[in-house]
């Protein structure tokens, strides 16, 4: 069982968790904690720290791009730093209340990562119920910010490749950039036309509007292989993504929105990804599938302290079913990425559908648990 003091303070307004680079290390008790990340290892210099702000200094000594995470139980992301290229160092600030955590490096940016224990000692007063909900939304805001930063960066790389006429590189970056998009799509959906402009499929383009965004470029890349005229669409995509990023970072989501977002992401999987409709030209649907699951998991993880207090059995069910989805989807990994949708058999798709159904039914009950007055 999670100790009660873990309900305790998640840093309110701890944007520091997402900042990277340079200063601030001297403020942390005991100085920065060195993390040596390689393709096969994740050496964290200290595994016992005091409650309060810790700074991790991550150096990527491997060949693969890596990420570093600090997880609370249930894989609730307390802080993360993405996209650490080989040879680079990044600092991660995170405010941690007492409890047991896990650190993880993710060489290749996939999978559960190389995990290690982290014990934080000290004490903090338990949160009031409302404070727990506030902490949930703050936790999710941190997640959104980390994802939007990566989305902007990867979209910029994708757009640059398209404009340079580099078909192979564009194809490789397409599912990567989309991963960050798909993790937070329910947030993007709040902003009216921006979602369809960025991610709309051809048949849902409204009358009078032009088919654009990710999927138009996907069509050019895979159907004709001609991206010589895709530049303006790529520029528009970049502008739209920047707008989404700015708006998403400014948005304050309610706990109920988190709960509904977690479910909406599974609906996305059930209606768009399993059917192969989303990425009908590239067939990279499983990348989106996995990203939707990541996003759903992150929203639930943010709500976890509230859910554990109010409905521990539901949390247990969600843990089981998320693990089942991960295991079922995990069968279709291909290298650092995923098999194409067209490589899956009908039996594979049925198995995935069953796993999503088994998760989505209990997730659909989360909103009411969150909404219930304690």
């Amino acid at each position, binding site marked *: 069982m999670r100790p009660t003091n873990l309900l305790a303070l998640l840093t309110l307004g701890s944007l520091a968790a997402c900042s990277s680079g340079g200063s601030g290390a001297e403020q942390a008790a005991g100085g920065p904690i060195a993390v040596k990340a390689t393709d096969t290892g994740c050496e964290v210099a200290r595994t016992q720290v005091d409650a309060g702000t810790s700074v991790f200094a991550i150096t990527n000594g491997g060949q693969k791009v890596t990420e570093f995470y600090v997880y609370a139980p249930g894989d609730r992301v307390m802080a993360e730093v993405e996209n650490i290229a080989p040879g680079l160092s990044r600092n991660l600030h995170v405010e941690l209340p007492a409890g047991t955590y896990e650190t993880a490096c993710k060489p290749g940016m996939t999978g559960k990562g190389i995990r290690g224990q982290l014990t934080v000692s000290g004490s903090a007063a338990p949160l009031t119920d409302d404070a727990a909900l506030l902490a949930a939304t703050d936790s999710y805001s941190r997640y959104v910010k980390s994802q939007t930063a990566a989305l902007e960066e990867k979209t910029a790389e994708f757009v640059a490749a398209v404009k340079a006429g580099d078909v192979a590189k564009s194809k490789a970056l397409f599912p990567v950039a989309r991963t960050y998009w798909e993790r937070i799509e329910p947030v993007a959906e709040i902003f009216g036309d921006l979602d369809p402009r960025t991610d709309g499929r051809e048949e849902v383009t409204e009358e009078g509007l032009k088919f654009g965004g990710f999927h138009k470029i996907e069509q050019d890349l895979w159907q004709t292989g001609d991206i010589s005229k895709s530049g303006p669409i790529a520029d528009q995509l970049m502008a739209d993504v920047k707008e989404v990023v700015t708006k998403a970072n400014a948005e304050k989501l309610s706990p*109920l929105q988190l*709960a509904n977002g977690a479910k909406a992401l599974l609906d996305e999987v059930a209606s768009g990804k399993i059917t192969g409709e989303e990425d009908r030209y590239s067939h990279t649907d499983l990348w989106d599938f996995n990203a939707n699951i990541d996003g759903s998991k992150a929203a639930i993880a943010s709500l976890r302290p509230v859910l554990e207090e109010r409905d521990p059995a539901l949390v247990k069910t969600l843990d089981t*079913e998320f693990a089942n989805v991960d295991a079922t989807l995990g069968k279709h990994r291909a290298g650092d990425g995923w098999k194409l949708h067209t490589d899956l058999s009908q039996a594979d798709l*049925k198995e995935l*559908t*069953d796993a999503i*159904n*088994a*998760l*989505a*039914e209990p997730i*659909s*009950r989360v*909103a*009411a648990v*969150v*909404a*219930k007055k304690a």
Partner: protein
Amino acid sequence: MITRRRALALGGVGAAGLAGAGAALISRGGSEAVTDAVAFTGPHQAGIVTPAQDRLHFVAFDVVTKDRERLVRTLREWTAAAARMTAGLDAGEIGAVDGMPEAPPDDTGEAIGLPASALTLTVGFGPTLFRDATGKDRFGIAGKLPAALEPLPRFTGDTLDEAISGGDIAIQACANDPQVAVHAIRNLARIGMGTVSVRWSQLGFGRTSSTATGQATPRNLFGFKDGTRNLKAEQEDLLREHLWVPDGDGPDWMTGGSYLVTRKIRMLIETWDRSSLAEQEAIVGRHKGTGAPLGAAGEFDEPDLTAVGADGTDLIPATAHVRLAHPDTNNGARMLRRGYNFVDGSDGLGRLDAGLFFIAFQRDPRTGFVPVQRSLAASDEMNEYVRHVSSGLFACPPGVTGGGWWGDRLFA
């Protein structure tokens, strides 16, 4: 008549209270109005000798969990929901519209305002629930596998599609309102998510058998009366001999139960329709209008299998359906049939995708369905016009009593 909304006012029915609710709301018997409720509890499951309702939604599930406790939990939840829905109530205790606005309703709502409509829900367990394809005991119940659940043999001419055959658990929903039957299966499938996965399902309209003497014999899509000589609810001696599993007839948990065979039989409607009346009647062995056996006057007259016509040949041909299916031809084999017509729209060639969803209950398929189907598969002239495309075999336990649940004796 109890409607869902009114019944809710009477108070919820939980799993524990289902026997009481059944007694309070329902009377058993052959004379229910089409809208009334049929008792869910009793020594035998409802939906077998219950006067055949007009509509069917049949579903076969694969069990996707390896966890016995989870399967048992689902069976218990199903039982509670089935007790509620057959009583004309919502699937869940909160109901379709009385819950929190933020929560998905625990009933899907399409049966709001509809009466119980004689809904019956009948559960059966397939051979694959006991052992997997490699012979492994899946849930610690392999020792309770009845010998009578031995997989059906391949019959000559079978064109079975595995994807719509078999299954670990089957639920037959019959009702006099198609929406009520569909509502029941939809809600049970939803409750089972994560434990079971729908393998296949079948809608049927228009019963093709009568299971009570008060019911007129209906017609199948060949236009013929079907099930004239069916076992009927009132024939208690025959039911004991041919329908219900008696004590000592295999594992205890099946005592009072019955074995269910399903066959989806596609009819080649267009070619049948162009065959002459005389040919159709010779194939069936009955008159199309009255349903009387060839050479007889009344529907219920016993077919005379020895009668010879003016030309010196059998009046009922050697290849006629009625002769080949007759108990005298099959060592006295009898079944209780309660099949349904189906039309699944049209196939890609413009032909009606239609036929008979055959359902038969019996004490032992090895002496019931199997010899009869062997006889039909070998010689029935009707085979030119039918294709068996799906097959199912399930052990239906006795009825739920007291605080029991579906499969309680199997998983005890």
